[in-house]
């Protein structure tokens, strides 16, 4: 079966210090909880937000935000 490579945002919760810059740069996919820690949309990053996602990853002062490559079947379930 053909595979589509997508990318998903993931936080390393041990490294994350709740700085919050990711949610400021990418409010479409990241919000913060009542203690200031990010809640990340688990779905693949849509192509339209690819650039913003990369900026958010690069801006994280704790290097806790990552883009993880995931292989998904081409056919939607």
């Amino acid at each position, binding site marked *: 079966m053909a595979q589509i490579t997508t990318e998903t945002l993931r936080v*390393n919760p041990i490294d994350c210090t709740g700085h919050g810059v990711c949610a400021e740069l990418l409010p479409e996919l990241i919000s913060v909880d009542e*203690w200031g820690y990010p809640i990340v949309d688990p779905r693949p990053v849509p192509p339209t937000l690819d650039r913003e996602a990369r900026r958010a990853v690069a801006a994280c002062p704790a290097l806790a935000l990552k883009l993880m490559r995931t292989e998904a079947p081409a056919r939607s379930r």
Partner: protein
Amino acid sequence: MTTTVSESAPGGAARQAAGLPRLLSAIPEDLRGHLARYGATPYRGHGVQTGVLIGDIEASGLTGRGGAAFPVYRKMAVVARARAGRKVVVANGSESEPASRKDELLLRLAPNLVLDGLQLAAEAVGATEAHLYLHYGPTPEILRALAERASRGLDGLNVTITQAPPRFLAGQETALVNRLNGGPALPTFQPPRVSERGLGGAPTLVQNVETLAHLALIARYGPRWFRAAGTDAEPGSMLTTVYQPDGGGSGGSSPPSQQSKCRVVEAEIGAPLRTLLSSGAETQAWLVGGYHGTWLPMPQATGLTLANDTLKRFEASVGAGVLVALPADRCGLTEAARVTGYLAAESAGQCGPCLNGLPRIAAGLAELAGPGHRKQTRADVERWAGLVTGRGACNHPDGTVRFVRSALTVFAPEISLHARGQCSATNRKPFLPLPDGMPTSEDDWT
């Protein structure tokens, strides 16, 4: 502990047909008794394809008995496949769940079965190092078994023993690897999995001690024998630690210095839970799967079996086999609040949501268990439970939330009573066991 699983343990006829008990002898077995009972350790020998045992383990359907029920062959295959000069196998006997006593009893009664499993697993994956990670220091039974095996040249690898700190998360796989690396027993973020990069970066196979004991028997008698007990989906037997009202049940062992009576029973997977746990009027609820487990209401739960397949309807699982029948004279809400306080204190404090959420959840539950509570407290607890779920590096927040949410549901009538300043309990003595003295310092992770 004086006695072990007695023949009068529940489900007598069915247990015997399935060849139970498989793991536990009546008294600690020395090497001579062990070999007489089970026969020689079935090493495959050099040059023999190591995949043979892994294939048998796959066919047996053996899953991890430490709580996660992960297929054993899969982790073995990853380590076996790895091209590395150093590979490690660890027998995990940390048993850091305070209500579980089954690994302790197994290591006392059948240390040679565990050590057989450790050596056989090491041979199958091509390990160069073997470790035993223990909650209590090495017991006389373990030391004797190791010495007897060494004098007969039975073991391919020396076994290094490390003691786990008495913390709830100390047995978590990544915490174990960190401890064996000489650091604190704190969980780390995955990936990589420890089977890919574990101890000192080496591919590391971590298996619970009971899992390794089953593996040693499958290596001897084969997968078909193993599948004679259990269900098709979840074959075999498992050790359970059972707590219930005085007078409930029979047989089993009674470890000393416990606040409540407990016994360790080897049960067939799929056994009706009511053959293991009392379900009459003296019981108000069951707790299945320990402190990361699920409260189940009576009498709705009485038809369930000891199998994840049936328990998942109640969002429950067998976990590491801790089963509790809470007596009718206790306050379930108070019990749940006490354990939740312990779980919050046992957060490693590394992940923001767990560090912030668990103490708030515990405080909320304590308030609900007190006389009267603020109107929004229950909703607050529900919201915090949602906020911490799935957001830890390990499953501590998720397991704690499973315990708390099921308590809120099952003990809802008790919450209403407490709101009016009442409580249904006639016995205030704590029932669920917790370690003596809560953790006080933040640096006792080693």
